[in-house]
């Protein structure tokens, strides 16, 4: 397969178009502007619609309008913009509207700055807005995955009628790597529920709040049933050197690549260390943790935030003592030596205790 050199943000845009997404709405915010500009340039070429919205609020609601017609649609933003979109993401969840929302995050609460960070993990995986709901959350760690997971996000979003979030960061959005472009999707599932004008059929209602109390409870139950189904079927993680690992580092997205370098070095020194890299952050790959929890003596969650995913690791392993955290927020980026040092410290503590 022929490889192309491209930037992470542009890879998402190209993959979206190849997934049959011909509608993009967005508002400028760094560090994802290349994606906005890529869609501005590319969508007219394929007869699609690009519209720069007056705000993230307007953009996500334009997306809702297209999603309600059953067509593939996306927006992209960065952390503060993502916060603005949350009310509508909650609506999208309640209306079961497929759509892709890309968050190339900033660091820190408030305005933050644009160094790489993973501090929107909890917002993404807990739903983010009001009410009992989840969205699919996919976390690419390289440009190839930005292509592949964008394709997958549209596929799963359609399949389960659930909004999907692609969670990246300042490095992954900006970096250039070579990757194989995915084949364009030929068949997009027909949406019988879509609002397209009721000619020749019963009318379709794409609404958030049903009329009766009973229907409201039924909707919530239906959503939870769907979330259970997704948890059963769609957990994804990459495992590296986990076959015999006694210590597991858990890392998602860009930081997992720094972890890989440290694992190579640790293995050379005789430490049995492996990596569990969640690819779906929601559903969290709980089953994979369960399979390894018996043998692994310690899990170290390495994150570019103040410790968010570590809560999910603790829940998955169901042993608080067994799970440690290393990382930091505000743009802190660990290097492989720091990670290695942390793992060695952890192992020495364990063995000193025994």
């Amino acid at each position, binding site marked *: 397969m022929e490889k192309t050199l491209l930037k992470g943000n542009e890879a998402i845009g190209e993959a979206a178009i190849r997934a049959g997404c011909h*509608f993009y*709405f967005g508002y400028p915010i760094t560090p994802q502007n290349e994606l906005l500009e890529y869609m501005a340039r590319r969508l007219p070429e394929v007869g699609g*619609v690009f*519209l720069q*919205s*007056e*705000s993230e*609020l*307007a*953009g996500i*609601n*334009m*997306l*809702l*309008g*297209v*999603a*309600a*017609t059953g*067509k593939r*649609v996306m927006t992209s933003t960065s952390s503060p913009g993502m916060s603005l979109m949350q*009310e*509508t993401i909650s*609506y999208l969840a309640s*209306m079961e509207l497929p759509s892709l929302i890309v968050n190339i995050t900033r660091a820190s609460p408030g305005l933050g700055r644009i160094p790489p960070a993973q501090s929107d993990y909890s917002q993404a995986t807990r739903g983010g807005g009001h009410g009992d709901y989840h969205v699919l959350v996919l976390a690419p760690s390289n440009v190839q995955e930005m292509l592949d997971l964008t394709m997958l996000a549209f596929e799963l979003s359609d399949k389960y009628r659930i909004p999907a979030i692609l969670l990246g960061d300042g490095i992954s959005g900006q970096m250039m790597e070579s990757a194989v472009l995915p084949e364009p999707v030929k068949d997009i599932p027909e949406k019988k529920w879509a*609002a*397209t*004008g*009721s*000619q*020749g059929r019963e*009318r*379709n*209602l*794409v*609404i*958030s*709040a049903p*009329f009766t109390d009973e229907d409201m409870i039924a909707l919530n139950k239906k959503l939870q049933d769907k979330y259970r189904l997704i948890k059963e079927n769609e957990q994804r993680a990459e495992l590296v050197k986990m076959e015999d690992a006694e210590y597991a580092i858990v890392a998602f997205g860009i930081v997992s690549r720094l972890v890989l370098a440290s694992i190579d070095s640790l293995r050379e020194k005789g430490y049995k260390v492996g990596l569990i890299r969640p690819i779906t952050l929601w559903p969290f790959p709980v089953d994979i943790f369960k399979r390894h929890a018996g043998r692994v003596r310690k899990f170290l969650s390495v994150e570019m935030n103040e410790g968010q995913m570590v809560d999910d690791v603790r829940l998955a392993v169901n042993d608080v003592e067994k799970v440690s955290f290393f990382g930091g927020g505000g743009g802190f980026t660990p290097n492989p030596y720091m990670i290695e040092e942390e793992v060695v410290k952890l192992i020495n503590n364990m063995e000193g205790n025994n």
Partner: protein
Amino acid sequence: MKEIFSKPECLTDNPLQYCPGCSHGIAHRLVGEVMDELEIMGKSIIVTTIGCSVRCWRNFNIDAVQGPHGRGMAVATGLKRSLPDRVIFSYQGDGDLAAIGMGETIHASNRGEGITVIFVNNSVFGATGGQLAPTSLVNQKTSTYPDGRDPDIVGPPIHVAELLASLPYTSYIAREALTNPRRVLRAKRYIKKAFEVQMHKNEFALVELLGACPPNLKKEPKEALKWVEEEMVGFYPVGELKTEKTAEKETARS
């Protein structure tokens, strides 16, 4: 027996959920009649948002999409961009369209989106219990300003129709009050034109309907209508404010 009056086909048999004397019922009926006459039932989609009319999808016998509070015109923008040959309209109240949603209102209008907006201005937040709206009149008593609207504190009421008429790319802007049969018939003509502008020119049209909210005005239905006629119509001039897009040359210069 010859049927001379019946419910429009574009309205369902579901009962209206409104209070006695509320103007939403008249507005619904007028929109339904217009859609029947234009034969657009099968190709129309309504955007509903919030407030007393939040569930008007129950009453309009067409496809419906719900949007969050204030975002109706952004949702309608998405629908229209996706389905340019369908008739897309939003049905919005004053709090929705002119308070929280003013950003979306201004920008959708300014883009000249090919949508129709039915804007019901009853000068008060209805569903939440009578709080100040951006269109509440000066000195009008509301639950959040029981001594009346003081423009020095909350600013003067907003003339939505005039504001949007000032934007070069809006094509049809009209206002009428639903207070007597003469006005109701005129309102229907305006609504019809507002749909035709979308159908024939794919341009932006809005009709502001001045209506009554008797419980929140603390008036009997008849008195509430009288208040609308005397107070609101005096402040919000009725008629067609604009019937075509401002000339493009002029747009380019200004």
